[in-house]
């Protein structure tokens, strides 16, 4: 192997093992590619798979022979894996990773869609919509955890947000006041999290889990006492309107997905950009990261550690609460007991899978949203692949990621450690 890179020469005295993380990933990809080309290719009927560029079966479509496509993309996956296995420069690793996963998914789709059609616009729209709370929840997690406070209570913030939006939204008959109260609902949990974690030094993971249960019990209790008997007074919030951005919405495929949708999507996209730039380029971002990685050092140079953490946790609460509004104002139109059913934990998974960065979390959330949408689609077309296994994907992907099989996942150094000045 003539893969001695500059890094190796400049690097450590310990010789690098042959089975680096990249090579292991490559080997996994080769295996996946063989599976895709062999199994999916063999199972796929030799019929045309149509990916229509609309919300239904009509209009232009990308066509490919299902069997051919499954084998072709399987081979692409093998190629990506083999390249990783051969050893290439570090900077290509993530590109190859992305290519391998994409080709594997495409191979799977070719098998499933062969002889049928898949509406791409509808799929993209649905994925983005399902990813929406995950994006907001994961962003809230980014804010908290980059400043060093573990936030396992995203689920509880979602629930309080969803509940607040339904309750106040109905009483005020305004979707915007509903959204605002959703943010406040998330804030309530965030305040408890911040005060108990920082002032009373309660273990943050324990606290998060208990706050989830508290939110579950509280919203469930008030739901049964108030909303169930008087649904018309307390539980019929107005639905969020669709905002069509003139001009941009007419772009084919992208337009209807991104520019003819509900305001929460715009909010989420803007927040991803703002937080991403903010963390990397602003004074606030630098301080947040400093406090999350090395609070003692940050304190020495005069940064208020607790103040920064409080601000970020509360901000995160507002964002996660707004994410909770999705469930009542966008998705279903009324509150129901435990209606988030684990979405907060998928958001947590997206945060970890996205390696604690806003953009990474965004793409992870999109991927999980896509997996979710795909599960619905596949059960609709009567696929033999059980939807439960597709719904497991976010969790399994995160499991694989934290086990270090795909790249390296590292939390902020001071994440979850209380800071005591002294």
């Amino acid at each position, binding site marked *: 192997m003539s893969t001695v890179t500059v890094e190796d020469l400049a690097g450590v005295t310990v010789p690098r093992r042959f089975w680096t993380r990249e090579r292991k990933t490559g080997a996994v990809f080769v295996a996946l590619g063989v599976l895709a080309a062999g199994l999916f290719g063999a199972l796929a009927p030799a019929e045309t798979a149509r990916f229509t560029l609309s919300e239904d079966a009509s209009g232009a479509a990308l066509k490919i022979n299902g069997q051919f496509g499954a084998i072709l993309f399987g081979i692409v996956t093998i190629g990506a894996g083999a390249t990783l296995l051969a050893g290439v420069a570090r900077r290509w690793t993530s590109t190859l990773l992305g290519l391998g996963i994409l080709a594997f998914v495409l191979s799977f789709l070719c098998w499933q869609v062969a002889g049928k059609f898949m509406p791409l616009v509808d799929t993209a729209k649905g994925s983005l919509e399902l990813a929406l709370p995950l994006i907001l929840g994961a962003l809230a997690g980014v804010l908290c955890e980059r400043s060093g406070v*573990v936030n*396992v209570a995203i689920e509880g913030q979602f629930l309080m947000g969803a509940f607040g939006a339904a309750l106040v939204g109905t009483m005020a008959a305004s979707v915007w006041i509903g959204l605002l109260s959703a943010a406040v609902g998330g804030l309530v949990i965030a305040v*408890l999290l911040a005060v*108990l974690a920082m002032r*009373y*030094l*309660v*273990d*943050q*993971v*324990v*606290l998060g*889990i*208990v*706050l989830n*249960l*508290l939110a*579950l*019990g*509280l919203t*469930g*209790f*008030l*739901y*049964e*006492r*108030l909303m169930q008997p008087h649904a018309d007074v307390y539980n019929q919030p107005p639905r969020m309107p669709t905002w069509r951005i003139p001009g941009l919405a007419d772009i084919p495929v992208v337009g209807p997905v991104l520019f003819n949708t509900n305001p929460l999507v715009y909010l989420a996209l803007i927040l991803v950009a703002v937080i991403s730039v903010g963390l990397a380029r602003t004074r606030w971002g630098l301080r947040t990261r400093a406090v999350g990685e090395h609070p003692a050092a940050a304190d020495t140079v005069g940064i208020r550690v607790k103040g920064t953490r409080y601000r970020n946790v509360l901000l995160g609460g507002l964002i996660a609460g707004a994410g909770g509004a999705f469930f009542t104002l966008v998705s279903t139109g009324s509150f129901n*007991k435990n209606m988030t059913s*684990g979405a907060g*934990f*998928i958001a*947590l*998974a997206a945060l*970890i899978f996205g390696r604690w960065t806003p953009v990474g979390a965004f793409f992870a959330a999109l991927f999980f949203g896509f997996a979710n949408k795909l599960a619905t689609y596949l059960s609709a077309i009567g696929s033999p692949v*059980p939807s*439960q*296994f597709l*719904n*497991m994907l976010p*969790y*399994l992907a*995160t*499991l694989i990621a*934290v*086990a*270090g099989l795909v790249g390296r996942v590292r*939390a902020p150094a*001071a*994440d*979850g*450690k*209380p800071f*005591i000045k*002294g």
Partner: protein
Amino acid sequence: MSTPDDREPAVGPADRTPAGPEGVAVDPAVAATEQPGGERQPSLPQNFLQNLWAANTVTVTVLSMVLALLIGAVLIIVSDPDVLATYSYITARPSDAINGSWTLVSEAYANLFKGAIVDPAAVSGWLAGENTWQVVFAPISETLTYAAPLVLTGLAVALAFRGGLFNIGAQGQAVIGTITAAVAGFVLPLPVGVHLIVALLAGALGGALWGFIPGILKARTGAHEVITTIMLNYTAGLFLGWIILQGGIHDPNRSDAISKRVDGSAQLPGLLGGGLRVNLGIVLAVAATVAVAWLLNRSAFGFELRAVGANPDAARTAGISVTRTYVLLMVSAGALSGLGGATQVLGTAHTLTPQVAGNIGFDGLLVALLGRTRPWGVFLAALLFGALRAGGNRMQSFSGISLELVTVVQALIVIFIAAPALVKAMFRLRAARAARLQTSVAKGW
């Protein structure tokens, strides 16, 4: 080599504990001074010191419960429109508001008590010969029935805690335990007696397998057990949802998601008969508590796991295999959780449904914290939670107060327990030995 307990100071109080006056940790000092359990006879001064400390713990625990019930009472009042209306003229006629609130709350909590411990009406009815003695014991029977799985999942969390691992995965392990126990319960044709034991073992094995995954990942790759167990919880739930619908598992006579019924020979037999639900599960729970107390305090493995929990680096230096301990610890914790799931499905549910495990894993987490990760503490905490649950059922049907109130109260109790500084500040308790009241390990991801 001396007894395990004598060796304890070798790895003693940890420098791993995060800094701070309130040292947020399963205080290793407690682990060291705590001459295990209550059945031993320590010397007099030691006894006195312990009682002092215990009294403090008890105070905070009791105050936490009182606070939680008070907040619960406020919730009951706020969510009752009729009583709430009387507060609009409270300055004019305060008696209306006060009487209304008092009636509402006292009735609700009286029902909570009657459903959990004993209903005086049933006792007098029994004395007058109007009903059987079983009716008198019905509330206790319900409490014990709900408590049994919680003891087991609580022990699973507590055991892992003592080894420095935070096992949030009790829920997933219990879910897998219900699956394997139930499947063994209706698939295997075994004679009475053997069948039950095999089904229980199958449950424990399933849970152990689900605990093995985070254990080996933690030991081999350093993947944080909190993250992996959270992910495995939901994976287990989805797997349960899938397997119920498969041929051979699904009840062919039903269209909804429900499995076949566990054979009678694999069901946990009732203890009292007469329609009372309390079953062998609670006996199993007592046995498990004894076993875990022995394991923690008397066995070599228990010593190793406490050493690893107190300070993994020191333990490694002392020649203890930390990786092996982590794996074994998670496997045993998983087995306990799986047994909890098995108790649930073999004792009361008898069939698999998507909600068969309920919330026993997460409740087990609360129970472990409330029991301060001591085996008998966990047992008592589980009894309390079982009582709240059993009483909550009666409160729901008699007073129309949603069972969710119990969830709120349980969560609040644990929040107050986990933040003793808060309780102390609220009641201006003496500041003595505050650090000893801490329950959990703060170490982030």
